[in-house]
């Protein structure tokens, strides 16, 4: 049985696609068969973050409408052969997806892949509901900032009431908190919610903390998921996330600011 994982958040711009790309690639690098699905119909971007935007021929909606087969639409990653990407369409309307046809595609993919990662669009509209409906697990991507935390809580409510698992009275979706754009320095200065604060409010288990990092923009510029930047703090933090998803216990890193020397503290800088 494939594990269906939705990467969701409610709020836009918090790092869903960056996280989907990094985690998907990381799982594939560990030898698992992974497919990444972009559910953001009309605003696809996963292809760009994965660096395969010029290889998109058919998309998710083409498959749904029977205009292409799954194999025609899936793009094999050039770096890792066990990873595929199913791009969203750029033009069709959001109503193309429904529970029945999405369910069929996921079932078909589940025969081949170990992990199905659903990159959710922002918001709580139909597209986001479709992305989370069939999920077994959810990675709730959150920035340490008031509007993001509040929206994450709304999404947690949706996971608990509007998913297939909720409707059929099955075991609930396993929720994971992924805190992104974390700045330990600002937390220490009392300007940013801490990991503990966000955990207290949302009360779901912590999967990872990704520090605010210049590496993320560089990675998206190049179309190389940041997990490939193994020297960077964000790349390492995503690697930890992948290891935790696979069941390892990994200590959390990058939670404290680099200590300033006493000299610079006294004289500023």
């Amino acid at each position, binding site marked *: 049985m494939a594990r269906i994982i939705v990467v969701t958040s409610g709020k836009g711009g918090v790092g869903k696609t960056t996280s989907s790309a990094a985690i998907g690639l990381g799982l594939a690098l560990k030898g698992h068969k992974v497919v990444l699905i972009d559910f953001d119909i009309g605003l696809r971007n996963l292809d760009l973050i994965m660096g395969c935007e010029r290889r998109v021929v058919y998309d998710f909606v083409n498959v749904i409408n029977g205009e292409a087969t799954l194999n025609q639409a899936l793009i094999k990653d050039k770096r890792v052969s066990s990873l595929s990407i199913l791009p969203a369409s750029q033009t069709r309307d959001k109503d193309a997806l429904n529970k029945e046809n999405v369910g069929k595609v996921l079932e078909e993919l589940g025969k081949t892949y170990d992990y199905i990662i659903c990159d959710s669009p922002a918001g709580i509209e139909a597209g986001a509901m479709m992305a989370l409906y069939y999920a077994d697990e959810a990675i709730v991507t959150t920035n340490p900032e*008031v509007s993001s935390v509040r929206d994450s809580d709304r999404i947690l409510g949706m996971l608990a009431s509007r998913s297939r698992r909720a409707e059929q009275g099955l075991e609930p979706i396993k929720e994971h908190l992924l805190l992104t754009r974390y700045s330990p320095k600002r*937390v220490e*200065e009392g300007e*940013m919610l801490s990991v503990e604060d966000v955990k207290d*409010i949302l009360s779901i288990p912590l999967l990872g903390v990704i520090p605010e990092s210049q590496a993320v923009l560089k990675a998206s510029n190049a179309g190389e998921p940041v997990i490939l930047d193994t020297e960077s703090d964000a790349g390492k933090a995503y690697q930890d996330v992948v290891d935790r998803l696979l069941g390892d216990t990994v200590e959390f890193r990058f939670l404290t600011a680099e200590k300033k020397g006493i000299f610079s503290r*006294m004289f*500023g800088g």
Partner: protein
Amino acid sequence: MALLDYFLRKKEKQVTTASKAKERLQIIVAHERNNRNKQPDYLPQLTEDILVVLRKYIHVSDESFSINLDNKDGDLNVLELNIELHDEPTSTD
């Protein structure tokens, strides 16, 4: 100046913006969660009334009775009654 700031900062234990954020979030999130699971005010009374009527005719224990008001897709409310009937015959006359 940095030296002065360093000592001043230690003294004044002012409320940080992060703690304000946390406090505000805890209140709003609790409020919203409450609304999410909110049942209408009349539900407890309705439950009791239905049970009274049912018990005029059949034996219904509290465990074999459940009532649920569900909101499907935002625009459809479903009132769901679940009554388990036991084998024991109950005379009604």
